[in-house]
């Protein structure tokens, strides 16, 4: 049993301090994953925070069975929350832009924030599942098996989403190119 799984066990026994260890060890990676999927820093933080709250409740209720490693389990929760956020964004588009938000100064470089804006604009319009799959595959470097496990689908579905996402991006690029 790894240190994080050990911490999860202590959380189940009611030790909140152990959950702090889990957050400290995993938050940077999870926020990066969420930001790359969603394309927005502030929204990514919200998604990860909600994911941590539901993970804590699941731990207390003994719903973490230890079949997967704790970071993998947390990443799965974050990805599902991120897809939910993308779906609700399609219904209610966000108007604010955290790329120029001064509260990020000194925390994340302006280049990274602008890259996220570019990523968001480019992938905007993709089906949330396709977008998440492409982000996890190309940006996070996860294998198709890991993505399938995280998204609760087959490897075949992952491959299909990757192909469709690339085709959609190519079509969009061609359309933009012919429009200008």
């Amino acid at each position, binding site marked *: 049993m790894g240190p994080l799984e050990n911490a999860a066990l202590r959380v189940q026994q009611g030790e909140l301090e152990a959950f702090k260890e889990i957050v400290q060890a995993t938050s940077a990676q999870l926020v990066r994953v969420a930001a*790359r999927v969603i394309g927005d820093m502030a929204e990514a933080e919200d998604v990860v925070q909600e994911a941590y709250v539901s993970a804590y409740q699941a731990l207390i209720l003994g719903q973490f069975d230890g079949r997967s490693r704790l970071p993998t389990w947390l990443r799965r929760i974050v990805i599902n929350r991120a897809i939910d956020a993308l779906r609700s964004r399609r219904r209610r588009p966000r108007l604010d832009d955290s790329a120029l938000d001064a509260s990020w100064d000194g925390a994340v470089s302006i280049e990274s924030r602008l890259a996220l804006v570019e990523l968001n604009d480019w992938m905007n319009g993709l089906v949330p599942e396709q977008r998440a799959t492409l982000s996890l595959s190309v940006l996070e470097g996860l294998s198709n098996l890991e993505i399938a496990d995280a998204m609760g689908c087959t490897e075949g579905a992952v491959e299909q989403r990757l192909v469709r996402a690339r085709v959609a991006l190519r079509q969009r690029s061609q359309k933009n190119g012919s429009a200008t």
Partner: protein
Amino acid sequence: MDQQPSSIEARLARLSCATENIHPRPGFEERVLLAVQQSAVIDWRAGVWRVGRYGLILSVVAVALATVFAVQGAARADEMQAIAYGTVDSEW
């Protein structure tokens, strides 16, 4: 400009590199722990409310049953009294 598959991959690779150093703002961990603690308090209150709601429903059912039994009991008592009076009448 026509974007070929290779240029799509190149753009993805560039964006991957550019977003590599993304991490949460300072104080994020504290905010998460606060939200977790608050959710625990809300859960506790929700639990009390849930138990209280069930208690209220059980109380209503208990009152209804008690009323039914009381009415039945009163009717039976009246019946017994009537029989008793009848018995007295016939004996008398």
